[in-house]
């Protein structure tokens, strides 16, 4: 059961981070606004679902998000790019700010009632007396479908091959005379559309509210960094790994004292460290993992290159 939960969560993380990996590796941009596009996806889908239902939203919302992303690249990032990486990064930083405010302005500060469609509401199967909801199955389906589509796109099409080449050797592709700015715009648009798609299916599984971007903002960086630059496969493995780590560490009821006892260190009784349980630590474990990875293997799990 924990494994299933971990995989579902991991797959959602992957949907978010695949776009970021593309953007980060190709353009070198730490897109701080990536999670904002995830949020926009959820809100657009909500808005569309109130008009014409969930299914059209599933298709249309990511496209709109992608268009917004492409416009942001064209009219904002491209200009910031001239001033270097820090300026680019700060641009996305500011963008995240503005997106959150605008979302609050349009849809209000409270969560919106974005619901799971009736046909997906229910139990898929019951395992060890715990229900597995249909919607989670649907989420898995979509993310695996996206993974397959992305893989096909990257390995079977010309533009995909260029993008792949650009992931590992950005200078080379430019030298070969490809229209790099246009590719950048496409990649940024595509990457944000993927985030938008994650928002569409994540928004109703969880909660669609203005803070949702901030909640996942830094964890996707962890995934990308742990997975390694330029590696979609790495991002995939890292997503699942982090999903499972979080889930399993919650399931374990042991304390830090026990862990240290395993390696033969006994902590002073009653100290604050000894009191902690692994469950308490669960949500910060990914950061621990990231720092560890960066120190001992800066390329990430499957990274093609260092930063």
């Amino acid at each position, binding site marked *: *059961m924990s494994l299933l939960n971990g995989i579902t969560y991991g797959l959602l993380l992957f949907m978010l981070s695949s776009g970021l990996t593309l953007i980060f590796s190709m353009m070198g941009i730490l897109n701080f606004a990536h999670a904002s596009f995830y949020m926009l996806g959820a809100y657009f889908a909500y808005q569309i679902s109130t008009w014409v239902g969930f299914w059209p939203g599933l298709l249309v919302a990511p496209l709109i998000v992608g268009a917004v992303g492409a416009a942001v690249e064209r009219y904002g990032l491209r200009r910031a790019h001239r001033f270097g990486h820090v300026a680019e990064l700060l641009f996305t930083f500011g963008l995240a700010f503005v997106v959150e405010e605008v979302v609050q302005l349009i849809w209000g500060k409270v969560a919106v009632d974005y619901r799971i469609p009736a046909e997906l509401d229910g139990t898929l199967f019951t395992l060890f007396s715990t229900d597995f909801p249909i919607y989670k199955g649907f989420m898995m389906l979509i993310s695996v479908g996206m993974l397959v589509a992305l893989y096909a796109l990257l390995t079977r099409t010309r533009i995909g091959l260029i993008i792949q080449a650009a992931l590992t050797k950005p200078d080379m592709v430019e030298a070969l005379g490809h229209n790099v700015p246009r590719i950048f715009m496409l990649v940024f648009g595509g990457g944000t559309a993927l985030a938008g798609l994650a928002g569409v299916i994540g928004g109703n599984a*969880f909660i669609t509210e203005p803070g949702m971007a901030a909640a996942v903002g830094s964890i996707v960086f962890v995934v990308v960094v742990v997975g390694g630059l330029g590696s979609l496969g790495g991002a995939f493995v890292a997503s699942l790994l982090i999903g499972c780590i979080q889930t399993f560490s919650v399931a374990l009821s042991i304390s830090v004292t026990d862990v240290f006892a395993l390696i033969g260190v006994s902590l002073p009784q009653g100290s604050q460290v000894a009191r902690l349980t692994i469950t308490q630590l669960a949500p910060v474990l990914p950061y621990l993992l990231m720092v560890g990875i960066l120190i001992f293997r800066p390329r990430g799990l499957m990274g093609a290159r260092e930063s």
Partner: protein
Amino acid sequence: MKSKFVQSLALATSALLIGGSAFAQVKIAYIDPLSGPFANVGDAGLKGFKEAAEILVNQKGGIMGQKLEFVGFDNKGSPQETQLQLKAAIDQGFRFVTLGNGSGAAHSLIDAVNKWNARNPDKTVLFFNYAAVDPTLTGEKCSFWHFRFDANTEMKMEAISNFMEKDKNIKKVFIIGQDYAHGHQVAKYTKEMLTKKRPDIKIVGEDLHPIGRVKDFAPYIAKIKASGADTVMTGNWGNDLSLLIKAAKDAGLKARFFTYYAGGLGTPQAMGAAGENMVLQLTEWHMNVPTKSTEQFALDFNKKYPGIWFYYLRVNNMVQMVAKAMNTAKSTDPKAVALALEDLRFPVDTGEVWMRKSDHQAMQPLYISIFSKKDGKAVKHDSEGTGYGWKTLATVSQRDSQLPTSCIMERP
């Protein structure tokens, strides 16, 4: 942008210059988040205070003929900013402040008010707390200059555990909470009180998770399910609560959730149908408590401010009690008002609120209610347009939540 800045600087300075006390008003500074992630709660609170002041005080003669007015100061949820805003309010002649959101901000404010009053005995300030529930605020840190109009965590737990004591269906309890002071306190009181009152109940698990960082509660729910718990006790609020309930419903967990904040702004909407017959809350009031005038007040309020739902009866209580104290003392001097508030027994719509002198903690009736489908009878009104509303399960009389205090108050 620059001109905007100059403009606002000019405005701010002029505001500071005319500040003083030129208005024939009793002004209370409302220091709470009005921007940022918690702005919705802060904004709703401010509207509640303004409405209550207008209808319950000003339209009934005001305070010695003066109007009561609430002015918002945005502390952005930060303890440091709270202190700056306090200074700003004092500069503009405010002698009363109120704050409710965030124990951190409340601690900061009580501290700042104590220090200010000690250093400026001729310009004292009084702090009305309408929602920060950390028991230490009326316990070890209690202050003559602080009054709390909400029941604190310990009192609420007393009421909940009394209710649990009588319900023989409860056999296994799981505690889950946010990993910070409030979550720790809820866990602590749950264990203490249940072992005393119902030693047969087993606490089958206790988990703390970092606040606002968990996206998917499924693993926690799986653990709760595995523990066989029939009851879950949680102090969670906001998204941490809504997500918990949603995950529980997804996994088909059949347990009842005792909560502190399930009725809080936005939460009913976020949990929606997932919470039906599963979520209980403890409040001083809800829409389906039969009352004389509050029901109408709430309906009018909801109509006037679409998107905001009347939630805090204690705001109304506080406004009336403060007005009463000022009228009794025939003064708007903070010290005189404080003395008049002490031991004040005030009849409100749900019974009586008593401001205990020894720790400045208000005692009031409380209600335990469950989230149920609107049926027009026991659930006459739904909550936040969800089709579900609160159904009273039990009434806790003012006496039933009273606990002794550890407060040793320094009095001026």
